[in-house]
Each structure stands twice: as C-alpha cells, then as structure tokens.
C-alpha cells in the first residue's frame, strides 16, 4: 500500500525549529487518527528522538544503510503516541552524512513502500544534495523560517538550490540536458542570472522547453512556516517574503502559518516531553494545529505526486 503523503521539513538555517515542528506535526497527525512515520533525515545531526522524548533508540537509519537490518519496517520505533513511529538517527554512524547515491536510492524506494498515511521527513540544515533530494521528493515541501536576515537569506538559497537541482535532474527526460547545464552556469552564454530569467527564457523557447518548465513549476511548490514570531511586524515579513520570492525568483512561495516564539518550546526539549502531548492548549501547539489543518486540506487537493525524481537517475 502506497503512502498517502510525504511531508519534508527543511529550511536551510539550523536551529529555526525544523525538528520541533516535524516532531509535533507528526504527533498532531497521529492524534487526528492517521498512521504516521517520522524519519530523522538530519544526517549526522539527528535530534528528533529528543524532541519526541524517545529514550535511547536502539536502531536507525545506519543499520538499514549498513544492511544489518534489511526491511525498513524493522527500523520503526514506537512512540508514546498511538499511530506514530520513528526512524531514528540517534545511533547514526560517522559515514551517514555522506550517504552514497545507491544507499540513498535504496532507502527512498523502501520508504515509499511503507504502510502509512503520512511520512514526515525532518531534514537537516544546509543545502547538501542529500538534504535537497529528500525535499524535492516530498509531496508537501515545507520550509521553516524565522524573521531574521540569516534565516531569510538561507531560505532563499535553499529554494534556489533545490529548484536548480530539480531542473538539472529532470532536464534529461526532455532532451534539455546540455541547455540546462549551460543555463545553470553562473556566467552562461544566454545571460541568464536569476531563476526568474531562467523561467522566462525557457517559456519563450517554445517546444519541449516550455512544457518542461511548466511541469517543473507545477511540482516545485515550496511552502513556508514562519516560526519564533515575536510581533505583528514579524508576521508581515511572512507575506512580504511571498511577494519577494515571486518578484525576484518568479517562484510561488506559500505561507502556511506562523508560530509564536514561546519559552515553553525550549522547556519542552529540556524536559524531553513533546509540547503537543504536555501542553496541547498552549499557544505554540494551537498555532501548529492550524498549520496542520492547512497541510491536510492542501494535501487532499493535491494528488499524490508522481515524483519525476523517482524515474530519474537519482
């Protein structure tokens, strides 16, 4: 049975709240009655087990990659929340951050066969290929951003890098690989410098190029969660980012919601008790519940993505 929806939570900058949000989002989905698998894909920086309050997971991704465990179902660790299991990175070995291409592919294929309604991928910081590829694979692509220039810049970098990665991957299927290789060069012969110019160039080229770019734009639909919000002004940054992304990149970025900055969040990780369980009526969880509802309703509109990546040479 194929999974219903894959959610990936990235963002570029470290410490913005990816693990907090993915862990608690997983809990909220499970509490709504769905079967959820949470996967800690912060390779080399796994924290998800701490946010969930899972003590000393005894198996994880490394065992699967190293072939000590063959079936992905055997990796699943039960949590205190019914219907929620975790693929942990707690015991990840030193080589995990530099996952080989074949190893990644094996994991992805296995993951897609999991029996679950939602698979939530907690990604690491930065824009390494391993991070970007998981992001591109997802049906719902979420970025966590905080209203600070460092996070904002990293988010735009993440969006650009993942978009370009997707274009490069899929160009071969349309016979556009040489054109794309040239276009993605910094000083290319076409004089194209920004994603916006690149999109316009391909649209104008006609034929397979136009079809190609339109299909890419349909499958690249990043969404944003604005976390650690302190003021009304911060909230307006979210909508301003949607506008800026369209103006300068020509890409649609959708703001799913905002979560207030709250002392309870870091206190929950100190206590190692997830906030969705301990303080479900508190402000951060209320905000996250709203976002969760949005995600579920968006997902039902958007049919399961036949990911082009699955066919490509990934």
């Amino acid at each position: 049975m194929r999974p219903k929806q894959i959610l990936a939570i990235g963002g570029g900058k470290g410490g913005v709240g990816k693990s907090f949000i993915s862990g608690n989002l997983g809990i909220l989905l499970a509490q709504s009655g769905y079967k959820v698998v949470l996967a800690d894909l912060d390779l080399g920086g796994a924290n998800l087990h701490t946010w969930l309050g899972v003590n000393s997971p005894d198996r994880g991704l490394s065992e699967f990659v190293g072939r000590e465990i063959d079936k992905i179902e055997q990796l699943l660790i039960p949590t205190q929340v019914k219907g929620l299991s975790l693929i942990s990175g707690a015991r990840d070995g030193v080589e995990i951050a530099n996952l080989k291409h074949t190893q990644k592919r094996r994991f992805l294929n296995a993951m897609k066969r999991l029996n679950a309604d939602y698979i939530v991928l907690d990604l690491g910081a930065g824009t390494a290929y391993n991070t970007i590829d998981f992001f591109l694979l997802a049906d719902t692509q979420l970025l966590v951003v905080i209203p600070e220039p460092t996070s904002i810049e990293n988010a735009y970098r993440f969006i650009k890098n993942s978009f370009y990665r997707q274009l490069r991957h899929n160009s071969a299927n349309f016979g556009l690989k040489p054109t794309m290789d040239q276009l993605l060069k910094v000083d290319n012969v076409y004089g194209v410098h920004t994603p916006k110019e690149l999109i316009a160039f391909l649209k104008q080229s006609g034929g397979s190029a136009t079809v190609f770019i339109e299909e890419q734009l349909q499958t690249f639909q990043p969404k944003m969660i604005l976390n650690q919000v302190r003021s009304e002004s911060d909230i307006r940054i979210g909508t301003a980012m949607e506008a800026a992304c369209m103006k300068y990149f020509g890409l649609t970025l959708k703001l799913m919601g905002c979560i207030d900055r709250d002392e309870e969040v870091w206190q929950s990780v100190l206590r190692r008790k997830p906030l969705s369980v301990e303080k479900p009526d508190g402000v951060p969880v209320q905000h996250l519940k709203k976002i969760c509802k949005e995600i579920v309703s968006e997902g039902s509109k958007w049919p399961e993505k036949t990911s082009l990546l699955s066919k490509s040479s990934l």
Partner: protein
Amino acid sequence: MIAHNVANVSEDSDYYQILGIPENASMDDIREAYEKQLESAHEESLAAYSLCPEEETEERLLELSLAYMKLADPDARLAYDQNRRIYAESLVGNPQIQEEPVVSVEKEKDSWKSRIRKVIYLRSSNPDSEKTDQPVHTILDNKFSKKEIKLPESLPDNSPRELDSKTLRDRQNVFRNLNQKNTSSQERLDTFYTTLDSQNGKTSYNGLVLKQIREIKSISLEELATVTCVRQIYLSGIENEDFSRFTSAVYFKGYLQCYAKALELPVGEVLNDFKPLIENAQWS
C-alpha cells in the same frame, strides 16, 4: 561636481500616491502615513534580504522622505498643489489658465558654488572690477552689502519638545522657521565656507562641518527632527559620525540625504564627501 544620487523623483511625481494619502490629508495623516510607509519599507527590505539590491531600498527610502518633506511643509505643499492643479488643467486643454507655475523655493536657490562662479564671471567681465588677487568672499561681501538683507527682528523660539506633543500649528511653524533660517543665514554660511576653504584647501562635508552649518543656521536638532521625521539619535549620529547607531549604510545614506535637504545643502556633494567615511565604517 555635483554627483546626482537622487532617485528619479521629479517635481512631476505624485507625492500623495507615494505616501498613499488623499489630497486633502491633514498634517497628522501625512506624518502617520510616512511613518507607516517607512516601517513597510524596512519590513520589505528584510523580507527580501539577499534578493533585493541595496540601491532599490535606498531609492524607496529617499522617495518617501522627499514626498514627506514636500507635503509636510505647508508652503512647499501649497506650491506643489498649485503646480499639480495647473498641470492637470493644462492636460484638459483649458486655455484660460495663464498663470505662471509657482517656482519652488528650491529651484530659486543656486548652490553656493555656482553663485560664486557667477560672481567671478561677472567680475572678470566688468572693466571696473577689483584686482584679481582679491579674495572671493570680499567680492561677495560687496555684492551683498549693496543688497540690504533684512534679517527678521527675532526668530521664533522653538523650545525643545517631544515630536508627539507638538500641536499642528507648532509643526507648521517649525517648517516656516526653517525656511527663514535657511534664507537668512546665507551670508554667514558663505563666510564659513570660505574660511574652511582657506584653511583646508577644499571644503569637504563631514559630520563636524554639518553640525557647524546647522549651528550657523540656528537650527536645533529638535527642529531638524520635526522637519525630517528622522529621530535625533540618528541626526546626532550623523554629526558625530557614530556609524554604530545605524543598522547599515543604506539607512545612514537615507537619513543623510534628509539632513542635507532640510539644510538646503547639495545632496550629491554631501553623499560623495561621506563616501570614504561610509566605506571605512563599522556598522552595528
């Protein structure tokens, strides 16, 4: 050379539209709109951080400050409104309007350097002129002494008060006083410039020079803050060249332009002179 670093905002720009206010907006409305627009500009600048080039933010900030200063000054606003009316009517093809458009106070004022150039030209073409080795300022003195500048008996005293507690009338008075002060101080200013020139070879604007000019004009920081809507901490930061008070060069340059305009100084030259200082600065 006057380097033109101003945004493409001319007398034809719709300042009401730029601030997002109707034509019958009150003084309070104007100020509120300006502050809201500034906040918006800062937010948008942050939201587009790393995407939007600095020049764009600078242009927007300058555009807003020009619009504010044009509309918040009651005399300038009157002139602007009249020009707009005339322009609008001329478009409709109304031949009855023969009025000469009111020339704004700005355009009437030459920069001090071009005025000196004019004097030198006149002097050299005048066979009765003084000897060539006479310093320029005395030539100016002679020119001005024939003119009889009438200084107002006493300039109105604006005692320091917080921006918000000023009444509408008070604020209008500040603008009117500023214009008077700018006009009446020209002679003292010219003396100051030529003194600087003779000391340093070439007048270069820096924080201290700006402060001295402001003091010659008897303009207090409070008055300047009222007129430009830039907080005193930033104005004094410019005078003290304390760059750590500003978040970035963009904001420093924006406020500097407001400062220069309010004191009727050549904005391009001021910016140019500050350029090396800005480049070496440590920002907060």
